[in-house]
């Protein structure tokens, strides 16, 4: 939470017009004072924030809801509702459906593609007041919780029960489990525990007509017809509002180790990954890549504790490997023999590295990786591309993008300062970040559709884990065929004929 709040504060206010306002908002109505009077019958006054009469709040109080944390997307909503129960959510949605008012469901508002903020003046439905943990079974490991539970608080809740949430994100202090599910968030534990499509066992969803779809089963196995909940995982709130989540927590690892490795060249990442996977097998829990530029930025902005500068001379990129298992001696032995074999060859794949010898060092090494997002946003205005490409193309994508910007004469102090890459090698997921002095139409035009076409040329995905939101609707076509998009639209129309749910997001 701390880092996010900090980031929110340091990002300079620089309003940016989003050029392509999607047409999804046509035919929707604005919230009126009459609507507000109706909401006042459903909710206590403390759950309503509105700039409309009878008791208007100042628009500054709505700012955190109207703007995303990067301050890149700006909505103009007049009203934020914070229901506490599924029933309240249902009543609100029912009314909005009758009145054709667009609703933006909002969790921790930590999204990176503008999926959680309004495009115009849609109603914001914040899940922040739904924070009850409904049940936990320490035999099956099944946790059932309200959608508004903050990821960190779930994690804290599970710690004494010796379990962990199968999901970990840099934004864990602010993001909410409902938002995580709705965006199918990936994050740092995906390599180990798989995606939410596997670990979410059931959902409670308020459908666009106000009906509550209760699929909060706690079953590992349930092959009875269509698995509807899967539709809502990653739907970004366009099909309904997730209000409750049943998720399979994993047994807490009793021993965790990590090691930061410095590599002489990018070509070594792939063989290193192969070797690490072969030797560590079941205890490998993360394999994170960062290029030299972004590592240096993290160090510059004080994220974590860096390796000794003289040791990493000539290192082109870094890899953070984490292991987690149940037996410390076993894990350490495996890790040690891996490191020994890595160092003890004719042409080592790595230059050097550090092995965390204490929990403090363990956190300090992770802090570098987790602090990258914050470090780049301190450096300038960031164009973020979260893409899936073949692992051996990570560097190529970064280099080609940089060269492209150079050819457009946009690579200098006053335009694009850095083009960096980092990400989850294990998942084939690269975060391509373009750090500019300011958001400008020229840079945007140089990047898009260039990046998307580049990704499409590798048959990659234009959004590996960040989703589509409002940022990438026009680019969906680069990763999905016309047939796929057509069927997505049909599903949307089936669930939400009035188009009130998170209008203008996901679908072009």
């Amino acid at each position, binding site marked *: 939470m701390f880092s996010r709040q900090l980031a929110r504060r340091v990002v300079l206010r620089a309003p940016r017009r989003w050029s392509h306002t999607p047409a999804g908002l046509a035919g929707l109505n604005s919230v009126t004072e009459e609507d507000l009077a109706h909401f006042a019958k459903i909710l206590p006054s403390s759950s309503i924030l509105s700039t409309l009469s009878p008791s208007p709040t100042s628009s500054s109080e709505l700012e955190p809801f109207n703007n995303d944390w990067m301050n890149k997307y700006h909505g103009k909503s007049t009203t934020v509702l914070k229901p506490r129960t599924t029933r309240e959510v249902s009543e609100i949605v029912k009314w909005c459906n009758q009145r054709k008012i667009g609703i933006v469901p909002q969790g921790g508002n930590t999204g990176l593609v503008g999926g959680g903020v309004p495009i115009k003046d849609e109603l914001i439905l914040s899940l922040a007041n739904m924070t009850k943990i409904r049940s936990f079974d320490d035999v099956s490991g099944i946790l059932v919780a309200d959608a508004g539970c903050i990821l960190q608080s779930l994690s804290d809740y599970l710690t004494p029960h010796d379990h962990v949430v199968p999901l970990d994100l840099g934004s864990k202090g602010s993001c909410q489990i409902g938002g995580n599910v709705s965006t199918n968030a990936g994050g740092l534990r995906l390599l180990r525990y798989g995606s939410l499509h596997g670990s979410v066992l059931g959902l409670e969803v308020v459908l666009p007509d106000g009906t509550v779809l209760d699929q909060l089963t706690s079953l590992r196995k349930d092959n009875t017809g269509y698995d509807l909940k899967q539709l809502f995982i990653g739907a970004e709130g366009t099909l309904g509002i997730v209000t409750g989540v049943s998720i399979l927590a994993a047994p807490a690892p009793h021993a965790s180790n990590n090691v930061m490795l410095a590599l002489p060249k990018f070509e070594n990442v792939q063989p290193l990954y192969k070797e690490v996977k072969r030797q560590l097998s079941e205890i490998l829990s993360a394999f994170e890549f960062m290029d030299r530029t972004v590592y240096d930025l993290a160090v510059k902005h004080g994220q974590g504790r860096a390796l000794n500068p003289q040791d990493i001379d000539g290192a082109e990129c870094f890899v953070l490997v984490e292991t987690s298992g149940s037996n410390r001696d076993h894990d350490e032995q495996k890790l040690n023999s891996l490191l020994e074999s890595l160092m003890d060859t004719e042409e080592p794949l790595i230059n*050097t590295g550090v092995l965390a010898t204490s929990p*403090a060092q363990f956190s300090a090494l992770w802090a570098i990786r987790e602090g990258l997002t914050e470090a780049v946003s301190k450096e300038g205005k960031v164009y973020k591309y979260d893409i899936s490409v073949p692992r051996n193309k990570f560097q190529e994508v970064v280099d080609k993008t940089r060269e492209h910007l150079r050819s457009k004469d946009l690579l200098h102090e006053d335009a694009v300062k850095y083009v960096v890459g980092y990400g989850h090698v294990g998942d084939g997921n690269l975060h391509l970040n373009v750090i500019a002095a300011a958001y400008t139409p020229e840079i945007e035009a140089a990047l898009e559709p260039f990046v998307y076409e580049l990704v499409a040329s590798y048959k990659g995905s234009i959004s590996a884990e960040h989703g589509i939101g409002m940022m990438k609707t026009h680019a969906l076509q680069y990763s999905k065929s016309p047939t796929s998009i057509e069927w997505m639209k049909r599903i949307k129309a089936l669930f939400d004929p009035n188009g009130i749910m998170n209008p203008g997001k996901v679908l072009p």
Partner: protein
Amino acid sequence: MRPSAVRLLNILVPVKRTVDYAVKIRVNPDQKGVDLNVKHSMNPFDEIAVEEAVRLREKLKGEVKSIKVVTIGPPKASETLRTALAMGADSAIHIEVPDSAPAPEPLSVAKALRAVIQKEKDNGGVDLVIMGKQAIDDDAGQTGQMLAGLMDWAQATFASKLVVDPKAKVADVTREIDGGLEEIKCRLPLVLTTDLRLNEPRYASLPNIMKAKKKPIQKLTPADLEVDLTPRLETLKVTEPPKRVGGGKVESVDELITKLKEAGITPVKS
């Protein structure tokens, strides 16, 4: 004290394997100790001591002849020695005690260290002992002072800065004291205990970890040193600090007043 006139420094760094400072301490049900089946690492102050010795060598180059680390502890304490060797120490001594042995007390540790220093005379003696000001498990904070007393050497405790002049055989030390800093000049041989601000210890790099595996660790027993590590104190009871009781919310001023009265708080008439 030293037999040879060669002006080269031999540094001894005593280290201790302790429960890692980030681990939450749990008291055993028998209330005689704490759960030791948790992550251990080098006592943070000792890590600072090792770092300072290595930095001295980086500054003085060949004038530091050797950096030797020593520990008293169970077989696993050798991991702590390996960490120190990976940070840059040359060799190590492990005074091994069984896993079941009780933790030795400061005076017996100081006597064991005295015996080690005397044994080191054959290797050119010891000119400088750098050690943590205290171990974070028992927080005794006495060993350094006792060792200086037993050896009749100079002592500089709670150091936050160290400058050694090997030719003049003196050290300038800045000490953290109540209300400020104290600068003292000491003649070697010297026992120096480290405070937090002395330095920030480095990570042990992988190549150095590998090299450390080949560095020698000499194993000794308390009997070899003719010291008795049996504690003189008996632990009667170990308990956790009392749990904080959470507060409650009241709906009105009246309720607050009622609660205050229940708690035995009465208004004072002025």
